[in-house]
């Protein structure tokens, strides 16, 4: 069992990572895994397993408000979850076969893509029902829906497009989630926004709803296999729930545009650290 100081360090890191993630509208896993490996000195497999629980906790904790606001498309979520959980299953198979250095290098690449995505703006496509060609699959499955837009004071109808492309990207998102212990926003955002062309609010709510099930598919395997150390995963999960709650409140008061630029720098710095870890160079003292 780790000493109390390290437990408190895990709690503080998870609260911070999740609060920052929540403020920027992303899961904290992308900050938690590098923090645990680079600064905590944990093996990346143990960090991924711990982070997976925090991803589930954050997803479940914030899903309720999205569901009651009717922003989540639950039929689309279960359709895409067939792909994300299958990807996670592949990820579980690969996780124990890939060396830690490859996972660190892959994580560095994901961090850099996330930094690049953070610099750009999410694009909202037009949702004019008359002018669009609905995907056949989406129509057969009755995935088109509407959501209440409080600013407009009415329901906004939207169609789900290019479901096959969305499913392919979601398989990749599930795979990355299981391998790296993250929510995989790096693939989910292009899948939901650009491929399926969902309204941003629906995209965020539905993605958040799916993240928990995707992470549970790999989480259950890591838990049964014994990769999940309760003394590490416990504080990380609890800290993440507290951090996500804080992040949602900070979102209201902190200008996220300025914060976004700061964290592009942080993501690039973490990517550099993960690359150094991948090649076996550890310039930072460990907290453990």
């Amino acid at each position, binding site marked *: 069992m780790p000493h109390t100081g390290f437990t408190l360090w895990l709690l503080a890191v998870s609260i911070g990572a999740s609060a920052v993630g929540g403020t920027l509208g992303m899961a904290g896993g992308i900050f938690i895994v590098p923090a645990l490996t680079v600064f905590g000195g944990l093996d990346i497999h143990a960090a991924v397993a711990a982070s997976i*629980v925090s991803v589930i906790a954050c997803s479940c904790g914030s899903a309720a408000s999205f569901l009651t606001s009717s922003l989540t498309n639950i039929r689309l979520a279960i359709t895409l979850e067939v792909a994300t959980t299958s990807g996670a299953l592949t990820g579980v198979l690969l996780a124990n076969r890939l060396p830690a250095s490859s996972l660190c290098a892959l994580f560095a690449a994901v961090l850099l893509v996330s930094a690049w995505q953070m610099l750009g703006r999410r694009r909202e496509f037009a949702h004019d029902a008359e002018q669009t060609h609905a995907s056949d699959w989406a129509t057969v499955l009755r995935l088109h829906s509407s959501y209440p837009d409080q600013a407009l004071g009415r329901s906004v109808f939207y169609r789900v497009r290019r479901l096959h492309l969305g499913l392919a990207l979601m398989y990749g998102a599930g795979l990355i989630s299981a391998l790296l212990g993250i929510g995989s926003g790096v693939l989910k955002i292009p899948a939901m926004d650009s491929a399926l062309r969902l309204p941003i609010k629906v995209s965020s709510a539905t993605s958040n709803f799916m993240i928990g099930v995707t992470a549970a598919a790999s989480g*259950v395997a890591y838990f049964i296999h014994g990769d999940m150390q309760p003394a590490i995963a416990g504080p990380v999960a*609890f800290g993440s729930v507290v951090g996500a709650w804080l992040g949602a409140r900070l979102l209201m008061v902190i200008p996220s545009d300025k914060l976004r630029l700061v964290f592009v720098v942080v993501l690039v710095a973490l990517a550099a650290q993960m690359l150094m870890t991948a090649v076996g160079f550890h310039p930072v003292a460990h907290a453990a």
Partner: protein
Amino acid sequence: MSKDLVSDRALERLLARVLSMGTWLGSAAIAIGLVMQCMGWGRVMSTVTCVRTSSIGIALFIFLPILRVLLMAIAFVRMRDVMFSVMAVVVLAVIGMAAFMGMRLN
């Protein structure tokens, strides 16, 4: 409002309640385990008890999304929606396979 939409809204409310309650329970179990550990109760009781309490919370969190899919499967079966019932069962089967893989991995 279509019958589908009415049923989906009721399901959304049920899932919101379950996920919210589950998050509270999981967080509480982990918090109790952490407090026991940090207060040094592990020396008085047993370290295993502190770790087990946290493990219950972690297991609860992992089980929560699975319970959510199970509830969706039951709801879709009750709505006689064959396509979505099958999809929910497929998701549960994939998670079951992942659990099996966790037992068999070296």
